[in-house]
């Protein structure tokens, strides 16, 4: 296991390195620079500023400098907001984005799986059709449309939940709902179909023949096997939720990382673009690694590591 984790860790570093390199050159390929403004600035000042931020250096020197500071986890200062470093932005924004993301994932997985199981157990009955119709709607409506609809109905018209910001659990309901509906619908559909397949397996029939209680058959015998496809798409869903947070944070005025990420690209704020991108990718890669570990826990046939003498 230790060796596997080490191997994975090295591969993760490699991936992050490639992402950082690509982002760096793509970012510089985009026209414009962080120092360009609508006002005309004095040329000397402009030159001095470029010198200060080392933007006058050839690109490869800038690249090596950046990689060096990246290795020490120093993302540098923001150019647009010189009072703050990128690290400070991440420290402030990430916990909020993480909270939003993690609550969304938990809600999406729990309700999606539950809905999928219920639909599978009531196969071709009203509940099944209802759940699947709901799922299709959930998949079809983009989260930003969902967000506006939710704000309009639940916040403006009925005044049940606050329409924006991130302060109390009540504030969390609408953004989480808007972000979780899509993934939940996908998980529900997937759980249903794989559950239906698993329920026809011989070992389920055997469990029935043993007189095992239906609840135990579903949750102990079937669910674990049915979860495999769900775990497989978790990686994609995580990426989806991650990018979804940018939009949702913007709509609900949540002071998370998404705002900095989007703004930095518009402003060509090079250090912030690099910092947020590298940080997000590192986070996503780590989550994918967790998904792989969960695989091994769910299905004992999948071995993450090879021991001597194993058959």
């Amino acid at each position: 296991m230790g060796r596997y984790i080490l191997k994975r860790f090295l591969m993760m570093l490699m991936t992050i390195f490639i992402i950082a390199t690509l982002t760096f050159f793509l970012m510089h390929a985009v026209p414009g620079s962080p120092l360009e403004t609508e006002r005309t600035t004095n040329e000397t000042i402009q030159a001095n500023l470029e010198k200060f931020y080392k933007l006058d250096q050839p690109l490869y020197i800038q690249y090596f400098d950046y990689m060096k500071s990246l290795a020490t986890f120093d993302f540098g200062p923001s150019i647009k907001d010189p009072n703050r470093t990128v690290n400070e932005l991440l420290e402030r924004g990430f916990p909020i984005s993480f909270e939003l993301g993690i609550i969304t994932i938990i809600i999406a997985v729990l309700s999606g799986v539950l809905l999928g199981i219920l639909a599978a157990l009531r196969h071709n009955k009203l509940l099944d059709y209802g759940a699947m119709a709901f799922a299709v709607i959930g998949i079809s409506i983009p989260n930003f449309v969902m967000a506006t609809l939710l704000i309009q109905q639940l916040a403006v018209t009925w005044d049940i939940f606050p329409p924006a910001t991130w302060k109390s659990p009540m504030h969390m309901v609408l953004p989480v709902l808007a972000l979780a509906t899509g993934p939940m619908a996908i998980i529900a559909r997937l759980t249903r179909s794989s559950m239906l397949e698993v329920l026809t397996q011989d070992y389920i029939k055997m469990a029935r023949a043993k007189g095992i209680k239906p609840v135990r058959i579903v949750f102990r015998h079937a669910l674990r096997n049915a979860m495999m496809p769900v775990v497989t798409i978790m990686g994609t869903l995580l990426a989806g939720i991650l990018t979804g947070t940018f939009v949702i944070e913007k709509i609900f005025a949540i002071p998370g990382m998404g705002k900095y990420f989007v703004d930095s690209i518009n402003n060509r704020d090079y250090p912030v673009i690099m910092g947020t991108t590298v940080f997000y990718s590192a986070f996503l890669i780590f989550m994918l690694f967790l998904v792989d570990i969960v695989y091994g826990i769910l299905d004992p046939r999948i071995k993450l590591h090879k021991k001597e003498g194993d058959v």
Partner: protein
Amino acid sequence: MTKPIADELTRTRLEDGAESDPVAHDAKRGKVAKPKRKRTVTDEKILEVKDLHVTFSTYGGTVQAVRGVTFDLYKGETLAIVGESGCGKSVTSNAIMGLIQQPPGKITSKGVHFKSKDLTKLSKKEMRKIQGVDISMIFQDPMTALNPTLTIGEQLTEGVKQHKNLSGAEAKKRAIEMLNLVGIPNPEERLKQYPHQFSGGMRQRIVIAIALICEPELLIADEPTTALDVTIQAQILDLFEEIQAKTGVSIILITHDLGVVAKIADRIAVMYAGKVVETGTKREIFYTANHPYTKGLLNSVPRLDLKEEELVPIDGTPPDLFSPPQGCPFAPRCPFAMEVCAHVYPEPTHLSATQKVDCWLQDERAKKLIEDGAFAH
């Protein structure tokens, strides 16, 4: 073949004993199995199936999978249900076991009595108290019958824990006993392992252990050796005999392998197109089979004692059970079919206390025709 000649043949074969007995000869492998078989078959009926019908509604219509099956099972005996694929033998066993999903399945009968209870009238909850406790089932394919994500230990013990309220430690002890009984070495360590860490034969032993852990009185084995290779088959059959001798369990053995039947069955029920066409003791079926289908089945098995004889397959295919024929379902394939066979299903004829056959050839009028030489070909 006329009756007197058949009797003659039988007598000579019986007298020859085991040497030329195609059945026993085939079954003997290495060890002599006979002496350890100290089973006692009693007169006590443990299971009475009366006129069992099972149908399934599908998009293509209604399949009449089982069309009036009647048989009894006595305590301590092994009844083999034989027949070709799709004749309803597995459906019969699933119906007894309460494993038919209704709908799409539908079960009607004049009673499936296990001891005093009518299994078809029990609620699902009441049935669960019988499943795995009084009646257990062994499945055909050990590669798929065990849950790949649960340890052997958990799959073994969950039944006793639920049904007999045993503690974890007691259940584990019981599981170790069972693994010892079915011949799995190092049971204590094996309990922690997963199905993929066992071979096919080992897995079937585990499936058997799971079926027996609550000490059932009836064991339904649905083609328990079909998925195994021949040497493992013999070992598993020996294990069945051993367990029956130790526990006195009654066994219903579903199979299409007459070699398996010859080895461990006491009585045989031959099924064709959802009906039991002939029942009898093993000897009666193997030596004095009367139904043309049973005869055909026996002729299609290779024999060691008759070298010259070619295998005779039964021509034709079984009827479509979406619209089964109104008369005898075997009539279209039967070399002795008469006009009446196509229209009316024959009443059972009792040939002895144990042998019963559904065939128009047993009718007095047909016998007269035979004597007149109507079938002299």
